[in-house]
């Protein structure tokens, strides 16, 4: 299957699209597929991804009047929600180890397996960089860290993936 071209929502998003219920509804319909894919790649689960994206839109709606760039803000929320999801899952596994076979659906191949084993921020950096096509500065804004830290996250993440892909 041909890889899907990377999403470029900012190109079609009007900068002024930040007020009014109609604008929010429009953004929801337009950005949902992209955010769903991002969330699936970050959580490894379709079911949890839908939950994450819906809750992210709820949070965006609450901050709608304050969001300078709703789409970028939404992307940050989704990534943060995914990181929170992994934290909760980690805690749950510690308390209920028998339930560790959560809804991870991407364990079918070694690359997906290796991606799932990366630390949440490493995985987010990799996905944003190589699927979303974000620059280091954009990733740094999403992850609230310095661009140099992003470089380190990506570098180490790739190193771990390389051990699986190129043993």
């Amino acid at each position: 299957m041909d890889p899907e071209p990377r999403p470029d929502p900012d190109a079609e998003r009007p900068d002024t699209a930040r007020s009014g219920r109609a604008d929010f509804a429009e953004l929801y319909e337009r950005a949902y597929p992209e955010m769903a894919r991002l969330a699936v790649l970050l959580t490894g689960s379709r079911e949890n991804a839908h939950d994450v994206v819906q809750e992210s839109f709820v949070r965006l709606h609450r901050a709608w009047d304050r969001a300078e760039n709703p789409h970028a803000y939404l992307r940050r929320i989704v990534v943060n929600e995914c990181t929170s999801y992994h934290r909760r899952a980690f805690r749950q596994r510690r308390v209920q180890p028998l339930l560790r076979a959560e809804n991870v659906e991407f364990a079918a191949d070694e690359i997906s397996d290796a991606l799932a084993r990366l630390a949440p921020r490493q995985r987010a950096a990799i996905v944003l960089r190589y699927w979303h096509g974000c620059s280091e500065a954009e990733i740094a804004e999403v992850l609230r860290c310095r661009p140099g830290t992003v470089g380190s996250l990506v570098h180490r993440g790739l190193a771990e993936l390389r051990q699986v892909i190129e043993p």
Partner: protein
Amino acid sequence: MSDIEDVVREHLAVRAAHVDLTSDRADLDSRMTRSNRRHDTVRNGLSLGGAALAVVLVVGLAYFTTSGGSPSVRTPVQATSVTDRNVARAEIAGAYMTVFQPGATDAQRLALVDDPRGLQSVINALRKYASQSALETVRVHVDRATFSDATHAAIAFTITSTNSASFAGVMHKTGGAVFVDGKWKLTRASFCTVMAEAGKVTHDKRVYCPDAAP
């Protein structure tokens, strides 16, 4: 560009292309409604707590801001009606606290008691027959205010004291508050209830309000 980067990029693109999730506006609306409800609940709780905290801060500030030796005592903010019950409750709590606040002058105490005629002598008697510090060691905390109308409230309050000459410990009492002269005041009976407890003295005398003597 390294091979590993190409492999990862292609892998992610293929995976993303398989995602067939669809938006669900009805589900989103339902989540937003629930979120708004939770948000309102939290906001209401915070505003209630904030009002109470503000009153406590004002009382504390007034107490610690001394001018010329005598500590200043907070005068309750006027409440226009009982409809703003949260504000009224906070003012009543402030009045009870102020009347039995260490360092308050007698005039400041009695200014917050409805119908204070003859009560100065009760305070004097307390100082004379009970421990000198009886009035300074008693504390009163309002637990509940129930409004019967726009200007009257039934009060449940707790008296605590560290003065072993009268009593040491905690006592739960009921009293009242009344809105007069633009502010909430303790009812005379409430004041006398506290004074009677604080005035349980050693020796053979007890302190009572004139109209509450046994």
